């Protein structure tokens, strides 16, 4: 549904994107991750036809995203990263205008979305909070039932509850066979929605990975609190990889070997277990921080 091939654009300050290539298949949710200023929005702007590639090309729904941009956009729901509305309108007027320009029947889905996101569209946009504006943007993006969603940091400004609502919305659309490309800084969001993700850094794609592959690379950290100190000693001598011991608490790192982990634990009186799920993030962080782009 989306292909990007050797897309290159260098700005006058030397920044930009260089030889970016990846593709997003039909029905796939594709995550696009990277530190600030790494080129996510720039790539997306090319897909929307706002910029002409200096080199390479991109297609959306088999249309060239520059020469046939209007046709390509017909199939796209786009949520800009930095939302700037027009002056002097309220949410409803804005949505009316966009719906008219989209030229599709939107009424039902629109009121459904407004109900789902819980906001009052009659508020003048300049009086809206950041999150409310984001919600108006989301409604505009989803209401015309596009085949492809291109979302630039869709949950920025949303509270945790709304972030969850949004993730459910994405999953529902995914079930209908819709295709997504979304940039994000939220790892849990990517983890819960995406099939694959690309990581971009300094304008170059560092890696494109299956989320499950990333997850299996992921180490989980368990903090186990045991009843007595003898058990702690026994656990320490097991084959599990122990990171830290603090009184009755043992921090264990698990990477795929869950069976072994549970069998070992069955031997002890366990008082409390807590798992931290930061390690997928850690994998990303390793990519983010890498000085040299690994090839």
């Amino acid at each position, binding site marked *: 549904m989306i292909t990007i091939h050797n897309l290159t654009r260098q700005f006058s300050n030397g920044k930009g994107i260089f030889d970016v290539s990846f593709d997003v298949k039909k029905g796939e949710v594709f995550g696009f991750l990277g530190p600030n200023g790494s080129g996510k929005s720039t790539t997306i*702007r090319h897909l*929307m*036809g*706002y*910029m*002409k590639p200096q080199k390479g090309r991109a297609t959306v729904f088999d249309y060239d995203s520059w020469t046939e*941009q*209007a*046709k390509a*956009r*017909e199939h*796209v729901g*786009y949520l*800009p990263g*930095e939302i*700037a*509305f*027009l*002056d*002097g*309108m309220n949410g409803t*007027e804005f949505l*009316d*205008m*966009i*719906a*008219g*320009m*989209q*030229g599709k029947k939107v009424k039902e889905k629109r009121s459904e979305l407004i109900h789902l996101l819980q906001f009052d569209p009659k508020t003048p946009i300049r009086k809206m909070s950041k999150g409310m504006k984001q919600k108006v943007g989301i409604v*505009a993006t989803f209401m015309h039932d596009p085949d492809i969603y291109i979302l630039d940091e869709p949950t920025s400004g949303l509270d945790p509850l709304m972030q969850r609502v949004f993730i459910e919305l994405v999953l529902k659309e995914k079930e209908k066979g819709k295709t997504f490309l979304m940039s994000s800084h939220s790892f849990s969001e990517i983890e819960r929605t995406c099939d694959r993700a690309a990581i971009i850094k300094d304008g170059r794609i560092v890696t494109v990975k299956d989320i499950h592959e990333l997850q299996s690379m992921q180490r989980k950290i368990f903090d186990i609190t045991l009843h007595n100190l003898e058990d702690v000693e026994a656990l320490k001598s097991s084959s599990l990889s122990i990171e830290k011991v603090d009184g009755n608490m043992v921090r264990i790192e698990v990477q795929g070997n869950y069976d072994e982990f549970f069998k070992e634990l069955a031997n002890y009186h366990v008082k409390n277990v807590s798992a931290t799920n930061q390690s997928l993030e850690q994998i990303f962080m390793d990519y983010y921080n890498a000085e040299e782009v690994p090839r």
Partner: protein
Amino acid sequence: MSPSLYKQMMKSNFKSIMSFGMASAVYVILMTSLFPMISDNIDKIQELTEIYPDSLMKAFGLESFGTYGEFISAEYYGLFFLFILGIFSVMTAIQLIAKLVDRGSMAYLLSTKVSRAQVAITQISVLITGLIIIIFLNFAGGYAAGELLIDDQYAIAMGDFFQINFVGFLLFFAVGGYSILFSSLFNDEKMAFAAAGGVTFLFYALDMAGKIVSDLEWLRNLSIFSLYEPAKIAKGDVNVVLVSLILFGLGLLMYIATVLVFRRRNLPL
């Protein structure tokens, strides 16, 4: 052209269009209501104005106030009208494209199947509609006030008054044309404003300088404003068809260029 976009853009710009339209209409009516008093005291005024050099009088069209047509052309259409419409054309043209690009809201207008050319054509239509409304209010206000307040012997023929307004419209059709071309060329709202405003001011200044200093008369040939001579239209000394065609052609060229430029350029959205 996108009807929904046009509708919303007209709505957003309606207040500004109406304020410019009303302000200018009120001004025409006010000037018209002053005419009977001035024409009664024309001798005294001529004595007073004798102290000014001829060239200055010519520049502001103060040579003769004998008829209402000459009076309103000199006092309004040669001066205040140019300011109001000039400011409106430049300001609105910049707001309709450059401002939206600069602030990023253009991203939304270009997020649907409406093409760039269609967006540009819609914005151009909004500008032209605004000009038509303002000129219409001018014409209607001036004409109604003239009918009510001016003695028949001094009155201007409706046809002549219409021509003054019509050519005035075409002048700003052209001014709006290059203004919106600048608006589509620049990423920066302020730069676009400076360019369009600067060129407009330069045109006005060249026309004025050419009128005041007779040695510099040739300067007027460089200015689009020299094509609009309301006092002469009132006297019937202008080939209105020719002037209209030139102004219309210039404007049309600018609008076509605007669409072409906007279709091809990179937008920092």
